[in-house]
């Protein structure tokens, strides 16, 4: 999995591409810890390149949303691919997480 970091209007955007599986999840969790430790309270995952997400990957997404919310921040998920939207739907993540069509909407 490739992880890129950028900023859109003061919001940290983590761009993900590839497979978010049990091997990639620890790397994303480490990146999340860096973002949280850096004091950022707005985070958007740009999921346009996510080909696959396993249970381990979904746990990191939930952890991110929980951590940001706990500190009074927000965490959004943008541009979900069809496979990711499917697992978000089955897991009920579409109902409880902030999901947007575009990064710009998620960062607004």
């Amino acid at each position, binding site marked *: 999995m490739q992880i890129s970091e950028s900023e859109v209007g003061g919001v940290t955007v983590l761009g993900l591409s590839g497979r978010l*599986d*049990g*091997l990639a*999840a*620890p790397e994303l969790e480490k990146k999340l810890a860096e973002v949280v430790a850096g004091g950022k309270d707005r985070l958007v995952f740009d999921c346009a390149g996510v080909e*696959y997400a*396993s*249970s*381990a990957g*979904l*746990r990191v997404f*939930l*952890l991110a*949303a*929980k951590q940001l*919310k706990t500190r009074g921040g927000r965490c959004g998920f943008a541009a979900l691919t069809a496979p990711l939207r499917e*697992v978000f739907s*089955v*897991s*009920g*993540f579409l*109902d*409880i997480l902030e999901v947007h069509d575009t990064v710009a909407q998620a960062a607004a």
Partner: protein
Amino acid sequence: MMKPLTFTEEIVLLALDDQTGAQLPLPVTALAYGLAGAVLADLAVAGKIDTDEKKLVVLDATPTGDPLLDPWLALIAADNTVHPVAHWLSVLADRQREVEQPALDRLIDRGILKRQDKKILWVIGLRRYPTVDGHERTEVRTRLGQLILGEDLPDPRDAILISLLRGCRLTDQIFAGPEFASREQRLATLAKMDLVGREVAAATTDAIIALSSAMNTAVPHM
């Protein structure tokens, strides 16, 4: 500081009646599947296995160092065929006693439960596991209860635990008060969040249907 309870220990603990130490009444095989799911969840959060809708894969076959989990990790890792989660739930559920007894023993070693042997009619042995100090059970019930009654996001660990508890129908026993009656939809939403818990729910439902069907066949309607 005491090491946090594993999911396996938490399910074993929460499946016991506060006062008597007897197992709470659950549908047939529900606890077996719940404990099987708890083992898989423990292995998943330890980074040893990963799951999706179609398969369970081993990420790292090196032992966790936890004797409650390592025999099962070794068993899964020794199978060269990749199976879905439901397969391993079935395998572990068939060995419920081997999952449950070590967890009970550890809860006794930790000073959370005590073993109590009684005789019924002076002959039939009855073993119970009453709590020494109910604070662990109270703490987890309070935390999960607040989550169900509120609108907060769960952390991944609580999402897994709620999903497992609902999967094996323990939520019906643990969160039975009137304040939870209107929170079924919220509970369902939380319980959907973990794949293993969803599979536990499906396996439990299938077992109940199979038993019901067998009983209807064996005892024709009058």
